[in-house]
């Protein structure tokens, strides 16, 4: 869309004037910290409500279960946070994850490669998917929505083709399960997958805030044209960002198949909306330029806490979605009010 020769127009379609970075300086910095902390507020309120409403909610087992159920969406959401900050979108998350899970099965079960190699292969395969997305978007200039929608369809088909439409079971590689459900911390019943998500979140945070990759991610989303005019290869960095998101897709594929003990070729559709929702609930703007890893994790947690809590409270299933929708609305609205006030 924006070739360097396209003129020098700065502001794109004029984003609505929301968010005002308040009086900055020290107090400002402090306040904005506080504000980010306040973003927890919705999460904490929801959490508290459930804890009061049901004695089964605030148990060690259930809290672990909530965290565990956040892992896959969380992993996908981390990668796509980068994509969304550049102003892009990735719809191939869900079915791409299924394809990576299948590839993991192909490597480990069908081809009998060592566990580590197979896992690495699946993750790199995810990177390849992301790379293809990146090339389509950055070089061929296909709008991200279309490019990744096409990839979503392709991955969905390929997962079935490669697996011959049947799940691949990891029965003979017990180590594979351990990736997700094992307990690395001795003596404590705490699933590895949650630790992995935590590590991935920290790495993502470092990448986004402390490296040039992160800087250019924000920069591209903020003003792609200007970034390009500043001599930065927007193409290259976009490809890197989508590839990175692809690596996260690969990891999500490994994590979900390790959790289930099998690679399910037909899953995945629908995960993309959930992952994007987590990112956006976490305050990242689809218009690009703004967002944070902390926000994304909070967003993912809000979704899984709500799902869990409503189930724990035995709310009839047809009402669960109604309530889920309303609570998301209220949570985001409250968050926006808070931001507007300050």
């Amino acid at each position, binding site marked *: 869309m924006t070739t360097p020769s396209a003129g020098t127009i700065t502001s794109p379609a004029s984003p609505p004037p929301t968010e005002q970075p308040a009086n900055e300086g020290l107090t400002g910095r402090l306040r904005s910290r506080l504000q980010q902390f306040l973003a927890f507020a919705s999460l904490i309120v929801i959490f508290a409500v459930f804890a009061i409403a049901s004695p089964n909610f605030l148990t060690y087992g259930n809290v672990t279960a909530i965290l565990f*159920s956040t892992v896959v969406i969380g992993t996908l959401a981390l990668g796509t946070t980068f994509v969304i900050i550049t102003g892009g979108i990735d719809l191939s998350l869900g079915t791409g994850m299924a394809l990576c899970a299948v590839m993991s099965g192909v490597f480990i079960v069908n081809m009998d490669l060592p566990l580590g190699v197979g896992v690495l292969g699946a993750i790199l395969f995810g990177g390849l998917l992301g790379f293809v997305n990146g090339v389509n978007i950055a070089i061929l200039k296909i709008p991200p929505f279309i490019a990744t929608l096409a990839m979503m369809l392709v991955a969905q088909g390929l997962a079935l083709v490669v697996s011959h439409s049947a799940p691949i079971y990891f029965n003979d590689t017990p180590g594979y399960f351990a990736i997700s459900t094992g307990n690395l911390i001795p003596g404590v019943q705490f699933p590895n997958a949650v630790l992995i998500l935590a590590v991935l979140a920290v790495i993502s945070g470092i990448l986004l805030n402390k490296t040039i990759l992160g800087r250019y991610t924000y920069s591209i989303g903020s003003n792609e044209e200007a970034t390009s005019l500043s001599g930065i290869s927007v193409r290259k960095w976009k490809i890197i960002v989508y590839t990175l998101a692809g690596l996260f897709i690969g990891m999500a594929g490994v994590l979900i198949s390790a959790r289930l003990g099998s690679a*399910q070729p*037909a899953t995945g559709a629908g995960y993309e909306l959930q992952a994007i929702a987590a990112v956006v609930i976490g305050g990242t703007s689809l218009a690009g330029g703004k967002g944070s890893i902390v926000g994304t994790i909070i967003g993912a947690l809000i979704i899984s806490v709500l799902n869990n809590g409503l189930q724990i409270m035995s709310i009839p299933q047809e009402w669960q979605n109604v309530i889920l929708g309303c609570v998301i609305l209220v949570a985001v609205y409250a968050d926006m009010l808070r931001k507007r006030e300050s």
Partner: protein
Amino acid sequence: ACNSSSGGTSTASGGGDKPYIAIVSKGFQHQFWQAVKKGAEEEAAKQGARITFEGPATEADVEAQVTMLTNALAKKPAAIGFAALDSKAAAPLLQQAKSAKIPVIAFDSGVDSDIPVTTASTDNKAAAAEAAKHMSDLLGGKGKVALVVHDQTSRSGIDRRDGFLEWMKANAPGITVLPPQYGGGDQAKSADITKSIIAANPDIAGIYGSNEGSAIGVIKGVEESGKKGIKIVGFDSGKAQIDAIKNGTMAGAITQNPIGIGQQLVIAAMKAIKGENQPKVIDTGFYWYDKTNIDKPEIAAVLYQ
């Protein structure tokens, strides 16, 4: 008649006076599962039990089901009813249930494990074979037949496809079976697929739909194409299929006994809670129904509208 009944609002404890049975099914929104739910609720009311009934949005959503099972366990139920989308995926959770001394009743399809106290299920493959047999009879053993299947990876989809295909291969040399097409159980999509099949194969003689949505889609597709004389064989029941059979658009269908499955499930669960002995397998059976027997009481009893 769904959000009422035994689920109730006594949200909190797993204890209470009524025994609580958490049922995690393969689906929720589809009529088949609603019928199972209905059976379970009726039986629970009769036996004085409290149940919850949940299922993922699609039969591909294994992870969501596993999460539901996890959450069900957290509620410390007296028993669990479980229809596994992928039985291996749930193995650790079943183990957990066992350690917590929560009996598990499998339903709909078996679970690859000896943990369940009993399994109330139908043999989908045999049922599909029965459908194939009737199709072959209807066509006099020759002609072109197509399948519109609801899913290519779920157990029920695979069994109902393979049962049909295998029977045809073994017993009907005169029948050509086209590659199966998958419509996700969506009526409109299945109807469009059916029309494509008819357009591509003007000589098509029969079409089989592997669940309610697929079967209705086939009926709609055939109707919309305006093509006469195509024999349609379906699966499950529901008002639209029953009507189609009555008016002759559809030759007949296989039905399981979903209400019965729900009832059996709760009966078995109550027995397990009380520690009574019971058989490892409860066959809930399937039936072929067509114009001739649709009004018979024993058939009418297993059909849901």
